[in-house]
């Protein structure tokens, strides 16, 4: 990992590591995520994401993306075509917009990272039209973007992602008392209260994987 250098920010190796860690954490939480979805949706969220991220892992076996943007684009296309359901197009759009935001940069500094996260969140809003507080993945992404922007002033890339992960986790927990207004859970009315939104939960897991990859990449970089 250290061969590409991380001095200027997070590179393609980090992006690949993020995707692999995401795949692992989604696999580990496959049942738990579907369980959340079973309570207020149709019980397939973990299964859907696992199908998509497994396909990403398979793709990464075949080809090595040269830039973070290339990794994001590959992830976007794979999620779009393999996940299905609401989450597939939404996560797909998120990664696609992130890819566009970072262009062909070799490494992502805090500013580019914030731009990528913001573009991802805006993409989900553009496709799904959810506002904050409607009990969707947006409720994890929006605080994550805000926290990342705050941390970017003076922080390292890892600091940015650690702040984003922490905020996303808090945002996911904060969906518990909400009534859903978008997605399947919206049909439940008050019965959605007391349950965590599965998409917000998976978003927090994936953003935590990004931070973990950054920390480990930083360590690796420091060791080089």
């Amino acid at each position, binding site marked *: 990992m250290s061969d590409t250098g991380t001095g200027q920010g997070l590179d393609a190796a980090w992006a690949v590591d993020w995707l692999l860690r995401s795949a692992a954490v989604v696999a580990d939480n496959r049942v738990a995520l*579907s369980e959340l979805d*079973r309570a207020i*949706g*149709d*019980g*397939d969220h973990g*299964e*859907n994401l696992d*199908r998509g991220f497994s396909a990403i892992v398979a793709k990464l076996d075949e080809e090595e993306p040269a830039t973070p943007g290339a990794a994001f684009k590959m992830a976007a296309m794979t999620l*779009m*075509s*393999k*996940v*299905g*359901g*609401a*989450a*597939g*197009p*939404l996560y*797909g759009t998120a990664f696609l917009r992130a890819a566009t935001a970072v262009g062909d940069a070799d490494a992502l500094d805090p500013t580019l990272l914030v731009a990528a996260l913001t573009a991802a969140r805006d993409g989900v809003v553009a*496709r*799904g039209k959810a506002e904050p507080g409607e009990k969707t993945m947006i409720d994890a992404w929006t605080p994550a973007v805000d926290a990342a922007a705050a941390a970017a002033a003076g922080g390292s890339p890892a600091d940015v992602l650690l702040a984003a992960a922490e905020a996303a986790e808090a945002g996911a927990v904060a969906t518990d008392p909400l009534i859903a*207004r*978008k*997605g*399947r859970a*919206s*049909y*439940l009315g008050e*019965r959605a209260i007391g349950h965590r939104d599965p998409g917000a939960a998976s978003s927090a897991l994936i953003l935590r994987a990004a931070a973990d990859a950054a920390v480990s990449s930083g360590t690796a970089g420091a060791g080089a």
Partner: protein
Amino acid sequence: MKKLINDPKAVVDESVEGFGLAHADLVTVHPDPLFVSRKNAKTGKVGLLSGGGSGHEPLHAGYVGFGMLDAAVPGAVFTSPTPDAIIPATVAANSGAGVVHIVKNYTGDVLNFETAAEMAQAEGIEVRTVLVNDDVAVEDSLYTAGRRGVGGTVLVEKIAGAAAERGDGLDAVAAIGQRVNDNVRTMGVALSACTVPHAGVPSFELAENEIEIGIGIHGEPGRHRIPMENADGITDRLLEPILADLKPAAGDKVLLFVNGMGGTPSSELYIVYRHAVKVLEAAGLGVERSLVGNYITALEMQGCSISVLRLDDEMTALWDAPVHTPALRWGM
């Protein structure tokens, strides 16, 4: 969970493969990405395509054939199919006159079909979309993802399919599909839950004496739970919001569709049908056409839905037009 399956992950692939073997005269199964296309369609005809999560059989692949769909795209169980399958299916359904996508209004379906339609259009295929949202169980569509597409989908596919078969153009086929959607209302009830194969546990729990009114077709909960009632009482509860929303006038002609959710014997559907006819006739409506059976299901769920479609002469004629698909056939 006891099911006649092998690997839970292979359920859809193996089932559609068997379906293709049993109906090789009518359909071709394309395995990867998975979609089903019609054999021997007229060229120059508007193509009709539908799709969605699997588990609602015979919807949609069962309706591929003469006078109905040209292609169907089955997703994973209860999960919308993805653009990588919808796009080649759209290409297969197109014979030059464009393709109508019939999409049930669920967030996942809408987003995936939207993406696919954009990409197909970028490849030069004209696509129109009919969004089916006939489910009156969803009371306040402002604060939800909107009314869901349920039983009315079958009627949209049959009637729009007949319009395409008689040679209507792209916009005309989409318009008649839209007209069916505008005139049909559906409400369902679940007596038991269903189990998604890869989940292995029921999608929700219903107590021994509880039923769920306003169920969708994915085992997702509905409007509210009530203690079990008799068939006539349940039928009243389903018809009431349908009629309140459709607001038919005395003398209107309707099609009455009593649909089984997969685990309810047809004998029970006819008990529901019997009372539904009486209620509609008491409201001054003429039940001119009927459909009773398992046409849009939720795996092995026990329960049913009732759809009422207000007919006009053109819709009636298109309903009566010959159809030859694995699951719906008459006149040929």
